[in-house]
């Protein structure tokens, strides 16, 4: 039954791939191809049958009990082989003739045929054949692969034993050898170091790094014996891997993907979309990666840092992960509605980020394809339902930075500053009080002198305060009464008048007011961060019928999904218990899901392509054993992310050249078999970072409040409410040249230069960005002032830092961006480009000056406008090359 024939390694394929091809071009990638032609081939449930049942049948005959029809359930074997409501047996193992399912799918009678035509999911002939053969062979089920705890697989045997650098390569090579394919040779040193640098820091390597690396690799290569040459090269390479892993920019690079997962942004997202303050959480993420915090700890602190015993300020900040969701401040909001929305968002995000499961389906009903129920959803929801939040933004309040609960995070300088101000304030208030007491004591005398001076001005002492005062009629009237006749209010008025005419009193009270204001201002500058905070008494949680906030059903308590390994009874039934369950060794999903995303960040596509869906509708892994090996190793290493990245980047698989050939492309267009290195477009942030870095403009400061870089004018005004934070005020100085991950992220109008390169809106969790290639991207790279200015500064570096000859200058510019020297053919194109542009601008100097005026930062006056403008054209040409846009 379980024996696979010689070609079953090709049977990775969900049968639904059969029909997606076209004659003339394309073949399916081999790894997804099923070749069920010979009738003796064994059908595999997970790979061949489940995708058909899930996609075509489970909708009405699957886990969702509400939607189930005819009493037939096909996702569980014992139900599928039992009699349905009609008394028929859908599946009789080994007996196709008696299996009602086969009769129904083969029927030509539209009133009988399954799936019914109205659901528009007809089965192909091949799919029917697979189902027939599966029943013939005994209709065996297998548990879905991702719900089984990964076991350490045996390392496969390989023929080409010298190729593997580590275990990863054995799995990859074994597969390639099965396919009759060869791995590619290693990439050139320059290519490799640029690849490494982008993968581990999101920045290009400096030219001196490239030169040192090349030299060290070369020196090692020329070493006497081949064996020692190899081990020396290996040592050099590993040293550089570690250097990049130790760079403070490593944490930034890793954070970018995590911010997508965590739906991080600088605004609340709904309607007027006002600012929030969350950069402290973002900086926590950078630090966590930089300090290589074990992933299980990262998980616990972000989900439940506040519930740890003696939680530190950092651990509380970490919990901002689940306050990153959007927040509605609209005037007419009904709080319960949005409280439900936020809790649901937390459930869906947690399930996607850690478990790779699509829980959003179960908000309204049992899952149609995976073994999760609506009750499971609200079980998880209950963990997140106890936060001291209101369900509505801080609409209308004076200070609307963050909606409670939030944490004030004061720096030591700010603390000292505030303490000093408060002291000064207290002192000033005391002096004022002293003066007031003195004035009260002197009041009778003062009144007497005042009245006498009124009567006989000439007799007054010239220093008396009363002299310069014109007595208001109201006060005079009071003073003309005898003390016993004056009311309390009248006495107060007299005192106030006495104070108001005393010069010291005025000075002192102004001082007190000014200090109060200063304290208020300083207090406003203390940053805050949205955090999780538990209610003393948990809110009651009920299943929401069809997911609607105003249709509560049965009461549920906090619980993890029933179909996954249970939570340890020792753990508390709160977020802390949940967090520990997510990273418990028996959890079959988390480690796989995380290593798969690490793989995706390096290779462009995960071993499981559907990084966000490890359920039955997701794709199976291209290398299932490798995925399991990595997952087991991840847990064994103590959830050590740097260790995993070190393993992946030091593999021979990773180090291959990304050159391809027509034959290889034909066999494996997407490189799922990994017979070559990864080559794909840089993500939005790193493209801009590269231009800033290569041009020397980059301000490498790490962390801090978000900044406002160049932005097309008028973009906000058209769509926003048009006031306050809804007007984009471009930053100045360093703010214009920080790394892109620090750019202010407004959810309603995300930075267009990021969007055009496929950055998400950050409204919901994103675990896999698409990679498109569009003309709007070309317009951005050619015309955005960011890139025009960067080209000018790159040109200046070429002219100033290289030798004086044109060839050296061009070559230097090439190296700054691409880490390699141009070939002679490339050099020729660049040389001609420079001369053409120089001749052109020679006769149009004004145009040259106009080009050089783009961007806020001025160039030094070392070069003629013509020279610099012509080189700017060359620099822009280099920045627009495909090779500059991709990591190869």
């Amino acid at each position, binding site marked *: 039954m379980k024996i696979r024939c010689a070609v079953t390694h090709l049977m990775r394929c969900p049968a639904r791939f059969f*029909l*997606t*091809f*076209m*004659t003339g*071009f394309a073949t*399916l990638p081999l790894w997804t191809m099923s070749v069920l032609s010979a009738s003796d081939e064994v059908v595999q449930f997970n790979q061949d049958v489940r995708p058909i049942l899930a996609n075509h049948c489970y909708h009405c005959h699957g886990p969702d009990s509400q939607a189930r029809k005819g009493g037939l359930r096909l996702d569980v074997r014992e139900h599928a082989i039992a009699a349905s409501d009609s008394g028929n047996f859908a599946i009789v193992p080994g007996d196709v003739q008696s299996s009602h399912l086969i009769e129904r799918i083969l029927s030509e009678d539209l009133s009988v045929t399954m799936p019914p035509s109205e659901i528009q999911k007809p089965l192909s002939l091949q799919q029917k054949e697979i189902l027939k053969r599966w029943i013939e062979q005994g209709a065996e089920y297998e548990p879905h692969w991702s719900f089984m705890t990964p076991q350490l697989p045996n390392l496969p045997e390989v023929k080409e034993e010298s190729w593997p650098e580590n275990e990863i390569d054995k799995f990859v090579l074994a597969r390639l050898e099965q396919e009759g394919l060869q791995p590619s040779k290693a990439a050139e040193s320059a290519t490799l170091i640029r690849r490494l640098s982008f993968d581990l820091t999101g920045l290009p390597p400096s030219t001196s790094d490239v030169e040192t690396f090349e030299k060290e690799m070369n020196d090692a290569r020329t070493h006497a014996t081949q064996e020692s040459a190899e081990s020396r090269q290996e040592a050099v390479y590993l040293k550089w891997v570690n250097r990049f892993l130790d760079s403070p920019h490593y944490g930034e690079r890793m954070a970018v993907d995590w911010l997508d997962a965590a739906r991080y942004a600088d605004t609340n997202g709904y309607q007027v979309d006002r600012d929030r303050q969350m950069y402290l959480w973002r900086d926590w993420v950078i630090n966590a990666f930089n300090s290589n915090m074990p992933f299980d700890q990262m998980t616990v602190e972000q989900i439940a840092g506040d519930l740890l015993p003696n939680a530190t300020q950092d651990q509380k900040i970490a919990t901002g992960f689940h306050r990153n969701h959007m927040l509605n401040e*609209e*005037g*007419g909001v*009904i709080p319960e509605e949005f409280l439900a*929305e936020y809790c649901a968002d937390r459930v869906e995000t947690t399930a996607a980020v850690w478990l790779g499961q*699509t829980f959003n389906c179960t908000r309204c009903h049992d899952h*149609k394809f995976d073994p999760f129920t609506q009750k499971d959803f609200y079980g998880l929801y209950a963990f997140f339902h106890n936060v001291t939040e209101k369900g509505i933004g801080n609409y209308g309040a004076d200070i609307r930075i963050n909606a409670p609960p939030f944490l004030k995070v004061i720096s030591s300088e700010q603390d000292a500053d505030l303490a000093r101000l408060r002291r000064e304030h207290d002192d000033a208030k005391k002096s004022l009080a002293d003066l007031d007491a003195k004035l009260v004591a002197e009041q009778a005398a003062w009144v007497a002198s005042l009245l006498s001076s009124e009567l006989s001005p000439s007799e007054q002492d010239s220093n008396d305060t009363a002299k310069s005062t014109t007595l208001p009629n109201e006060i005079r009237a009071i003073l003309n009464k005898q003390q016993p006749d004056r009311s309390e209010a009248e006495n107060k008025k007299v005192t106030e008048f006495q104070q108001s005419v005393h010069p010291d009193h005025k000075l002192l009270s102004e001082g007190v007011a000014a200090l109060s204001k200063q304290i208020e201002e300083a207090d406003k500058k203390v940053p805050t961060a949205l955090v999780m905070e538990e209610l003393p008494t948990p809110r009651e949680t009920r299943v929401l019928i069809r997911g609607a906030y105003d249709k509560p059903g049965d009461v549920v308590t906090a619980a993890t999904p029933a179909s996954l390994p249970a939570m340890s009874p020792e753990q508390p039934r709160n977020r802390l218990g949940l967090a520990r369950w997510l990273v418990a060794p028996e959890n079959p999903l988390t480690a796989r899901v995380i290593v798969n995303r690490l793989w995706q960040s390096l290779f462009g596509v995960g071993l499981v392509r*559907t990084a966000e*869906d490890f*359920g039955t*509708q*997701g*794709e199976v892994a291209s290398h299932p054993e490798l995925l399991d090996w990595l997952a087991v190793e991840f847990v064994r290493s103590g959830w050590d992310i740097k260790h995993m990245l070190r393993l992946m980047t030091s593999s021979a698989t990773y180090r291959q050249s*990304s*050159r391809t050939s*027509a034959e290889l*492309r034909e066999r494996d*267009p*997407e490189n799922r078999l990994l017979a070559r290195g990864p*080559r794909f477009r840089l993500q939005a942030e790193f493209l801009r970072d590269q231009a800033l870095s290569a041009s020397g403009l980059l301000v490498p400061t790490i962390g801090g409040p978000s900044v406002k870089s160049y932005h*097309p004018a*008028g*973009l906000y005004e*058209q*769509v926003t409410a*048009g006031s306050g934070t809804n007007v984009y005020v471009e930053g100045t100085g360093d703010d214009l040249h920080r790394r892109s991950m620090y750019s202010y992220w407004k959810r309603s*109008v995300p930075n267009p230069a990021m*969007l055009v390169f*496929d950055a998400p*809106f950050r*409204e*919901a969790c994103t675990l896999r960005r698409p990679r498109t*290639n*569009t*003309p709007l*991207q*070309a*317009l*951005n790279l*050619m*015309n955005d002032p960011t890139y025009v200015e960067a080209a000018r500064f790159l040109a200046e570096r070429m002219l100033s830092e290289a030798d004086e000859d044109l060839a050296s200058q061009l070559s230097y510019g090439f190296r700054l961006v691409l880490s390699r020297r141009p070939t002679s053919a490339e050099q020729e*194109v*660049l040389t001609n480009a420079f001369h*053409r542009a120089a001749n052109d601008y020679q006769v149009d100097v004004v145009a*040259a000056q*106009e*080009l*050089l005026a783009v961007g806020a930062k001025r160039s030094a006056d070392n070069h003629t406008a013509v020279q610099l*403008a012509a080189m700017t054209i060359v620099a822009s040409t280099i920045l627009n*090359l*495909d090779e500059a846009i*991709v990591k*190869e």
Partner: protein
Amino acid sequence: MHNNLGSHISRRHFLNSSSTRIGSAALATLLAQTANAREPVSLPHKPPKAKRVIWLTQAGAPSQLELFDHKPLLRDYFDKDLPDSIRQGQRLTGMTAGQARFPVCPSVYRFGQHGQSGMWLSELLPHTARIADRMCVIRSLHTEAINHDPAMTLLQTGHQIAGRPSTGAWLSYGLGSENENLPAFVVMISRPSGPTNAQPLHERMWGSGFLPPRYQGVRFSPGKDPVLFLSNPPGITTARRRAMLDDVAALNQIKLDDYQDPEIQARIDQYEMAFRIQRSVPELTDMAQESDATFDAYGPESKKPGTFAANCVLARRLVERGVRFVQLYHRGWDQHGSLPGGIKSQCYDTDQPSAALVQDLDQRGLLDDTLVVWGGEFGRTVYSQGTLTATNYGRDHHPRCFSMWMAGAGVKSGTVYGETDDFSYNIARDPVHIHDLNATVLHLLGLNHKALTYRHQGRDYRLTDVHGNVINGIIDGIIA
């Protein structure tokens, strides 16, 4: 193994790939990459009535009671409490939930009958009244959302919560563009000319959600760069740009020869496409080519760039050039207070240009296969928000019924569909949910709303979620 293939490649794919001249190898790669996503099958599903859509979205929610839903009996109810039998305990927004009473508030504007059908329309819409015989007014729209953001997100994406593709993105994905030098989906936004509260919009409303970002709406703005980053920087002429692009192409070709990566060919093609867009968009937005008669028809605001009227002229120019989906947003309909004045100024902005657009399309023979839709995200309450006087009042959000109109391709013109009760509070007959509206729009475009799907997170998603019925009552004849 590969028989039965041609029919499974979408028309859009052919259009897209042939228009951008991606080499066949690149197409193969793209195909393989999207195989998982199950590209739509041979679209449209059936011969379409409409080939393109202009959606005149009135953001902020125009009051049906002042424009389309004539309720003469309300005169007798002035300042009387809305009967409980009508309100039936329906929920209120956070803005009027605290109000002590809900006084009924008839419109201060008069209605008259227009066109051969005798359609009742407000005196605020004298120009729209002229096209009464070309339109179908739907008086029985309804939605679930009670606040702007979720309601607009539902109207545009079929779901209240952000993250799904907008209607334009679905069409761009399903049908592609008929013009290789322009995007398939264009968005233009105008602000009210009057001093009225303009609700914010979000890029997500024309976003592509989980569809690839190339399907998202491209925002056209007034000014030097109708499309972001369209213009070359100062000091770069078209000739200089051309020369630079030739160099980029030459260097990319060297790389392609070495690496054989079809993505490099695609990059070369996209840069060429960018250059063509740089030339075609300024021609498109050059209003100097329009006659005085056109500006007269669209009204005095149409010469001012960025107004709703000017955008209407541009919308016609876009559909003339084969753009599939043009979405205009006009903001400022959110009259919680001072409604009579506010709505008048909104009608000044929109009435004449909307009517002129329909007539203009008609005269140019484009109305036969262009669908025009006019309306906002929900309706407004029959009771006054705030103080009610004989001449002034406000109206709160009302999702339970509101009006829209459609005109052009396949629409049963000169008709009214659906009916509300005497208070325009509940629907009395033929309700049309947002999903039904979207299903109907797709239907007119020859698309089965249940079959235009995209696989995301293991599920086949559609614009109408798991809802929606085509409303035959607003369709002219039967589409096979």
